[in-house]
């Protein structure tokens, strides 16, 4: 680490990569947990990107002769009732689960974030409508609402994404609204208006970039919830269908074998789910500390 310490005059205004490294080092020095979460995140990302190409066995290939084998050197996480390799399935499932989470968070950021910013900036009727939509969504138990949406729209990956996004809408709308609202009367917004900026340009060009750090934190925090939500839907059979490798389905498959002692079928996908949710929550907490040190606990 010591090679990063630069002479003072350069350190005053470091540029580009050096500045980023320095900042990361400074941030991680006081946030070991965030560093750990970030490492975990890189691992999950790697599994999602190259996992399907490096797993030892085909996640869909069944081998009834080797069914229900406990973890061993040839099958690290054991095999399920059809003799499929649990390790390969857990790794391959990362891509699908992460994709659902990322897509739904991106979607809810577009819907909730923009609606919230508009509500906070314009106030009046825009605020009332966005506020009431958020209230309506929150009036339902969120998982039941997600179930209802998927059941009504159909059992596809897109619909899981949409349902997860809708369920998270109020969180985003409220955070964005509050942040935009305090900036509505800020001097730089008035100055932007004097410079001839229209409402849209002020909203997207001046206010939104200022609340992005807070929104990114929000995204990281809801990412874990989105993964859990998608897995939950699949677990109750309202989501991705077998034989696709997905953590939720795998837990559901393995649940029946828990009583008879074949614990590994449900345990490993469950553990993967836990690690992923844990990672995103820690990452979100860490990001919040960095973005807004005052809210640190």
């Amino acid at each position, binding site marked *: 680490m010591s090679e990063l310490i630069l002479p003072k005059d350069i350190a005053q205004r470091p540029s580009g990569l050096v500045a980023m490294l320095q900042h990361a080092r400074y941030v991680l020095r006081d946030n070991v947990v965030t560093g750990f979460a970030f490492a975990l995140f890189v691992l999950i990302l790697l599994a999602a990107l190259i996992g399907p190409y490096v797993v030892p066995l085909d996640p869909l290939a069944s081998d009834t002769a080797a069914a229900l084998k406990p973890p061993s050197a040839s099958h690290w996480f054991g095999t399920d009732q059809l003799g499929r390799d649990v390790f390969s399935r857990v790794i391959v499932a990362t891509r699908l689960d992460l994709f659902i989470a990322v897509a739904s968070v991106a979607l809810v950021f577009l819907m909730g974030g923009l609606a919230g910013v508009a509500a906070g900036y314009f106030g009046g009727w825009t605020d009332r409508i966005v506020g009431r939509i958020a209230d309506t969504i929150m009036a339902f138990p969120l998982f039941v609402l997600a179930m209802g949406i998927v059941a009504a729209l159909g059992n596809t990956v897109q619909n899981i994404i949409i349902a997860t996004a809708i369920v998270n809408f109020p969180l985003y709308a409220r955070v964005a609204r509050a942040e935009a609202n305090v900036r509505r009367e*800020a001097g730089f917004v008035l*100055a932007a208006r*004097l410079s001839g900026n229209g409402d849209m340009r002020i909203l997207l060009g001046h206010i939104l*970039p200022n609340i992005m750090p807070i929104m990114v934190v929000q995204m990281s925090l809801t990412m874990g919830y989105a993964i859990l939500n998608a897995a939950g839907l699949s677990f109750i059979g309202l989501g991705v269908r077998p034989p696709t490798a997905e953590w939720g389905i795998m837990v559901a498959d393995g649940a029946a074998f828990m009583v008879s002692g074949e614990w590994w079928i449900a345990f490993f996908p469950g553990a993967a789910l836990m690690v992923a949710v844990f990672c995103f929550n820690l990452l979100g907490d860490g990001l919040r500390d960095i973005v807004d040190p005052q809210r640190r606990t």
Partner: protein
Amino acid sequence: MTALPLLDIRDLTVEFSTRRGTVRAVEHVDIAIGKGETVGIVGESGSGKSVTSYAAMRILDRAGRIAEGSVTFTGIDVRKASESDMRALRGREMSMIFQNPRAALNPIRKVGRQIVDVLRQHAQADASQLADKAIEILEQVRIARPRERYHAYPFELSGGMCQRVVIALALACRPQLLIADEPTTGLDVTTQKTVMELIVELTRQRGMSTILITHDLGLAATYCDRIVVMEKGRVVESDAAKTVFTAPSHPYTRKLMRATPRPGATLRELLPEDAPLSAAAPAAPNRNGSHDGPLLVVEKLVKEYPRKGSNALGKLFGRSPPTEPETFRAVDGISFSINRGESVGLVGESGCGKSTTSTMVMRLIDQTDGAIVFNGEDIGAIPAKQFARLPQRKRIQMVFQDPTDSLNPRFTAARAIADPILRLGDIKGRNAVRARCEDLARRVELPIDLLDRFPHQLSGGQKARVGIARAIALDPDLVILDEPTAALDVSVQAVVLNLLQELKESLGMSYLFVSHDLNVVRLLCDRVIVMQSGRIVEQGPTEQVLFAPAADYTRELLTAIPHPSFHA
């Protein structure tokens, strides 16, 4: 010095650990405060004056620590004392008044209860007498109807009243030492006068010692026995108030004295003697759409606001009987005009309607009634919402009060200056816009290499320059200056005021200068308009209004400006 000083700060060095290493905020400071003495610590922002007093009370935040030296208070070593001993000292023996009275009060607790809390904390009275004692204290700080105000929440009181409550809190336990950290910043001059007189009177009565921390040398000289001048964490001068004020020995004190706007000094005289004359080339004054007569005529301008809480339920259900609308007139039928190339000062205390007037002229809000004729055209008839994209927008620009708040934190200086050019200007192309920004930066004397920095990387004065460059980017005819120097140190203020004057002369603009500070207005303005509760009480040439005021209110404002008088 016969007796031991009450507070003895010796060779104090305070360090802050930051990500760029250890920073020394205060270095080898010696200050001794005797019993019953009032000492002013004067300095500009970053001089370490607040840190010194925080160290004395040992309330430095986590990053800061006393590295060297000693602080002795009534014989107790503050550095070595245990935290519980310090807690007992704070509030009972030494207490503090903070800058923003509203932030220092708990917003959801009645002010009387807050005083009771302090009394109870330090066991100053029997439980049965707590309320009576609190009312007595409120009475001592001259709060009218203390029995009623006991039950008031901070938001129901004015800024001056809140500061009185804070003083009441600080003095509740009859401490021996009061530290007042910029107690009147943000208050009107007339309120400042009453608050300062109250502090001085109460502390003298009780034989208390006071430390007054301020950036205003005039204020310190008026109310203090002794003045300590600090610069960059060091004490540069420490002497009797009269000596410091009339015959400052240190160059920094002299510079500070010089930069303070005062009667009889011209704008130029505020700058240090060796300051180079600006080499800004005079440009041809602009005469856009030349129209004879005044540039701006405001006639019978009115702005009404609905009173808060007036039948909100009725509005919700939409069927309340039509009652007389309860409105509040922020601006009550004012008329004035501004000629080309003229600077007009708009002066008044907070709540007098001067900012409302300027935002209406700016076309950021719609007026209730009246006309705003600019360049022969009634721009008051154009709704504020539509005005943003009209070509007239270019002709009226504004410099905001707070240079930090008025710059987008995520825009570089160059991007901020370029914003109006990109939206309304006729310069196209990246390089042309950049060249124009650099040209403007030169005009406002902002180093070109600072253009790519973000606001948090710039100093207050540099940010003010960016704000000015942005306002003049489109060669406006009228620039509204809304207390452009209120957030700046006096030496920076002097430079910025001079810059504004030079720009006006070289670009032929007119200024509407909104301010509460008559001394600053006098320097820059040809004419002055004095406003009080939404009406104009006096207007006329600057010299006449300031030296022979016709209205009582103007006279009151003038006498409230702290003037040390050492003739007595």
